[in-house]
């Protein structure tokens, strides 16, 4: 849990993420999205693949998944996502603050398309209860 400031700015390896029809359909059903197209919040899936998955495997953080609560989320979309495209997601630790046994970790995840154009930016604040 030490050296939190040194972890700020840590960038995890980019993850390629194919937007598959079956998964989009299942996601849309789960969030009650009935208007067609890919639900905007589907970007959570590549965001998790590039972000939380890496955090949980980072030995400098030693976070257990059951300690993690989702405190805050912000999305900015530059364009809609389409089924069949492949996106690249890259996560960066933007900020870490410790308050007692609770760690607040803000992760920024950028999604880009194959042309390198920005598709969306996600900012996720996770609450890690290290005494849980």
């Amino acid at each position, binding site marked *: 849990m030490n050296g939190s400031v040194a972890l700020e700015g840590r960038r995890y390896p980019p993850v390629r993420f194919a937007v598959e029809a079956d*998964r989009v359909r*299942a*996601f849309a*059903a*789960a*969030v*009650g*999205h*009935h*208007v067609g197209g890919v*639900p*905007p*919040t589907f970007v*959570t*899936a590549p965001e*998790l*693949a590039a972000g*939380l*998955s890496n955090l949980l495997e980072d030995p400098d953080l030693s976070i257990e*998944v*059951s300690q*993690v*609560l*989702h*405190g*805050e*989320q*912000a*999305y*900015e*979309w530059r364009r*809609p996502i389409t089924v069949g495209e492949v996106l690249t997601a890259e996560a960066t630790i933007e900020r870490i603050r410790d308050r007692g046994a609770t760690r607040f970790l803000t992760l920024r995840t950028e999604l880009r398309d194959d042309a390198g154009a920005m598709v969306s930016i996600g*900012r996720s604040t996770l609450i890690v*209860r290290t005494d*849980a």
Partner: protein
Amino acid sequence: MISFDELSVGVEVFTSSRVVTREEVKAYADASGDQNPLHQDDVVARAAGFPGVVAHGMFTMGTLASALLERLGDGATLERLSAQFRSPVFVGETIESGGSVRSLDRESRAAVLDVWVRVDRNGTVEWPIRRGEAQIRFV
């Protein structure tokens, strides 16, 4: 479908309610890839201090986005959405989401909405999302 011209500050744009089921929360876990057991295993959820499994914050925010998009139709796109998750949502509860106009920009045909999700829990209104923000832009 909604049009920019029918909006003014304070106008309620949408409300929608939904019962949260364990099956849907599990489906969300599989589709999103968030397999935190807090959302699937009552024992884990109780150990974390909750009465039972908790819906993902993004399940709630995704439901809110769906309700908003259904109201917008083809008339506008969602450009930004942000929220703090202030209170958990438990399976079996009915969540109600909604939003009203905070500000309008006639030049860019954009609107910022205050968005919220609330739940009636044993006679007390809780706000899983109290004052989130959505920016929409009209075509």
